[in-house]
């Protein structure tokens, strides 16, 4: 009988403790990365651009083919295309086999799940669904990029300025979001850092794209890095034509970044409901 | 398909009720703990009437037919008690909203029943009561031998007749 009382005596304080109290200053947190500081705008955007997300991983044997295709696309579409290599899924897990080179990101992993990128290589163009799915095989990239450029409604431009601050190891990004048309739903803005020219190990199965079964000196380009600012609100209820929204962000540089001079900052705006990319722009550091 | 299932359910459940009424195995009161008007714990299985059968009435302060039934029985309760030694447990299923009204109603109405509180409908559920009023007669062995739902004027006469039969040890339906 005493046992029962003991058990209750133990449970009682446990439940009493299970009550969280949030101090007043902690209730509304001004999220990391937003800032009032600015840097001059140096990259002015005037055309509709398209974002190609290349979902890839070093253990993915067909991915060198897609990487070559992505490079081809950049030379073909030039300023009209921004490529972002998202290293995700188990194919991208670092190990001693690639000297623990870690390109994985929390948000890249989430996107891979959200957009159904389970078998690699695969791509997403402006996060638009085609035939019910987001994913597009690299063989169809050319077609779809062309289609998207032709059909996309040019709603806004994103002008950019970026500055690397070595003292704090931070990148200050200024954005000017200029609306050419009315837009009636909620929009999110994403600020990411991509690094190019990283040399590492990549599995490969096709001799046309390098040595098999692996390429020891593969060059990874447009690699999505950590510490990006994802899904920050740009506008809650949409905006009217000719509106300009100026936003400034501070990003902590991912300590894994090897050469800051080979990095670019990519900013893209999405529709909060449909997830579709409205506009994207890129600036070199 | 839906209609078919509907009919199926209906027939099957009617079957259960008929089946249950002809079932000879009699239920006893469960060991559910409820409260007296003073708030003390009491087990339903401890209800008793000095070895004589007793009556359990489920009611609530907001239930008009229940009050009609309890008032009608109260008028004759003194006579019934002298004649047969009957005892009535009036189980209130009033919850926290109307529970404070139970005590003034009970004393104001001057019924003379044993009133107990089943605030969270524990006993109501355990005895399969759908809606009040619902009346049970429990024999001297603690077995539920008769029950009735609803109240219409005159039902109290039926109750006391059945009770007298049970006291005499006669079978009741």
């Amino acid at each position, binding site marked *: 009988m005493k046992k029962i009382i003991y058990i*209750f005596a133990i*449970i009682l304080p446990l*439940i*009493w403790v*299970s*009550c*969280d*109290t*949030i101090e*007043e200053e902690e*209730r*509304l947190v*001004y999220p990391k990365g937003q800032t009032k500081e600015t840097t001059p705008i140096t990259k002015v955007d005037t055309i509709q651009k398209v974002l190609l997300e290349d979902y890839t991983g070093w253990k993915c044997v067909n991915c060198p083919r897609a990487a070559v295709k992505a490079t081809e696309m950049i030379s073909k579409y030039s300023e009209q295309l921004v490529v972002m290599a998202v290293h995700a899924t188990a194919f991208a897990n670092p190990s001693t086999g690639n000297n623990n080179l870690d390109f994985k990101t929390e948000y890249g992993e989430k996107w891979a799940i959200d957009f159904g990128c389970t078998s690699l290589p695969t791509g997403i163009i402006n996060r638009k669904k085609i035939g019910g799915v987001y994913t597009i095989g690299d063989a169809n990239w050319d077609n779809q990029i062309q289609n998207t450029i032709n059909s996309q409604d040019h709603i806004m431009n994103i002008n950019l300025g970026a500055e690397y601050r070595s003292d704090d190891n931070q990148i200050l990004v200024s954005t000017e979001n200029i609306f050419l048309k009315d837009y009636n739903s909620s929009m999110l803005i994403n600020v990411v850092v991509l690094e190019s020219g990283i040399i590492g190990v990549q599995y490969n199965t096709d001799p046309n794209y390098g040595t098999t079964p692996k390429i020891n000196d593969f060059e990874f380009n447009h690699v999505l890095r950590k510490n990006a600012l994802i899904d920050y*609100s740009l506008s*809650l209820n949409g905006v009217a034509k000719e509106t300009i929204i100026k936003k400034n962000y501070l990003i902590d540089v991912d300590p894994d970044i090897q050469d800051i001079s080979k990095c670019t900052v990519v900013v893209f705006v999405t529709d909060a409901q449909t997830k579709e990319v409205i506009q994207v722009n890129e600036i070199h550091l | 398909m839906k*209609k078919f*299932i*509907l009919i*199926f359910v*209906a027939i*099957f*459940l009617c079957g*259960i*009720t008929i*089946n249950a009424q002809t079932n000879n195995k009699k*239920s*006893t009161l*469960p060991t559910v703990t409820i409260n007296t008007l*003073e*708030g003390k714990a009491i087990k339903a299985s401890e209800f008793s009437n000095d070895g004589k059968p007793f009556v359990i009435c489920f009611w609530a302060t*907001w239930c008009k037919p229940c009050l*009609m039934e309890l*008032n009608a029985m109260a*008028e004759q309760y003194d006579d019934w008690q002298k004649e047969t030694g009957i005892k009535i447990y009036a189980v209130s299923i009033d*919850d*926290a*909203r109307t529970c*404070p*009204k139970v*005590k*003034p*109603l009970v*004393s*104001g109405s001057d019924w003379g029943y044993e009133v107990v509180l089943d605030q*969270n*409908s524990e006993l109501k*559920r*355990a005895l*399969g*009561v759908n*809606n009040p009023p619902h009346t049970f007669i429990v024999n001297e062995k603690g077995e539920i031998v008769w*029950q009735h*739902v*609803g109240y*219409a*004027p*005159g*039902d109290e006469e*039926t109750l006391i007749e059945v009770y007298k039969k049970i006291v005499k040890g006669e079978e009741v*339906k």
Partner: protein
Amino acid sequence: MKKLLLAIFLITCSFNGFSQDIFGGKVTGNFQMDVQASKEDSIIGAEKVSEKLLMNAFTNILYTNGDFSAGMRFEAYLNPILGFDPQYKGAGLAYRFASYKKDYLEITAGNFYEQFGNGLIFRSYEERNLGLDNAMDGLKIIARPVKGVALKGVIGKQRYYWEKIWESDNFGLVRGIDAEVSINSLFKKFEASPLQIIAGGSFVSVFDKAEDRFIIEPSTGDNYKLTMPENIGSGAARLQMSYKAFNLNAEYARKGQDPNAVNGYIFHKGEAAYLSLGYAAKGLGINVSAKRIDNMSYKSRRGETGNMLNVNYLPALTRQHSYSLFAMYPYATQVNGEMGIQADIIYKLKKNTFLGGKYGTDLKLNYSIANSIDKKYVQLNPAGNYEGTEGYSSSFFKAGDEIYFEELNLELGKKLSSDFKLNLMYSYQTFNPIAIGHQGEKFIYANVFAADLTQKLKKRSSLRYEVQLLLTEQNYGEFAAGDWIQGTVEYNLGGKFFVAATDQWNYGKLNGEKVHYYNFAVGYTKGTTRIQLSYGKQREGIICIGGVCRMVPASNGLFATITSSF
């Protein structure tokens, strides 16, 4: 559909099995089925029912064998009758449990209902007529180590329609503990004392995983993230005392920070106080209750706003009416803040006195008022509202300046002769429709009357005549405008059979000649089985039981109910 058939099959088998006394246990249970067929009626606002036939049904099967009991409830909503949440659509085993009870220990696994004290911080219950069921699914332990002491512990998640609550983090975990001591039972020397004291205390904590929630400053579009408490705790203390004819019941509860959809995501702590004083003598009963509710919506999911997932129970301190026109303007507790008082006096004029007459007279007086609480809003957030802030401060004894509901009821019950019984009732009601969410409507002031005469006939049959009248100059919604009158005649035969006719007439409505809600009903009772059939119109309204209400849309057609206990 296969699932349904399987469930029916299982119940049939289990029932047939048990009824043959396998293991010597006993089977009891009950059953109810409602069937509705309603057709379109633009005059009363009844909408077309595309299924033609709607049905709700449930059956409880309870198996008891000594200290062990187990039970289940099968429910079917094919499809839910009007006014029930469409999310109930479907059928299945909604409730099942196994329980072991000894004198000092009671353990229940599976679904259970329980209440701590008056329910200010924890009550798990069902209200079938409202389609409300917040059964816990988990474990309950009640221990009675010594006479007069009861300890309760509960843990589990709450039912949410047919959702698979255990497969999702969207449903919070509820944990609670309660202790109650009866001083008089615990200490022998106080056992016979006229002063009876029962004291209790409880703690409850809900774990609800934090979700992302942002507040956006409109000018800059900057985000602010709301930090959510994941463990929402509450505690309550209570005291119940009685001394001779007097009794007292008091409970005080506090709730920790709980920003949620009901309170507009503010961090203000919750508080509830309840006090009830009574005097009871032979032929006279008096009760006065008061309560104060401040931000006490307590749910196991912070985004939930409906009637489901309530952890606590905050009933309205108003009379629960049984005459239908008196219940035209039902009041429900304003969980975000309310102060209320209710008083009841019940007096029996003695038999064979001048006023009491030959049979005595029952008099009942009831008064209740519910008012807003005083709220001083402190600071705005960057978005210009109160989300994510303290919200307001409130002084305990100060009432706000808004009346939600006020009502005075007088009732007289009198036996006129051995065959005639008369009940008269009057009510004056003041109702603030804004409190129920009807923005922009005027205060309603109504005088309501009822006369109800029961006549005993030969052979245990009886007749009942009832007239009700509601006088008001205000409108309540689209379909309840101005004055109403209602008449009912009911004939009962031997307690087995009844037939009734009712007409509710909204004659005060513009062009109200047509707005008759007639209804014919027949019913048959045999033992514990009751079948009732009614045909006619049902007005749009709100049914409130306890602290919660359900909208019932207007209907025109057939309604059948079968209930049975076995």
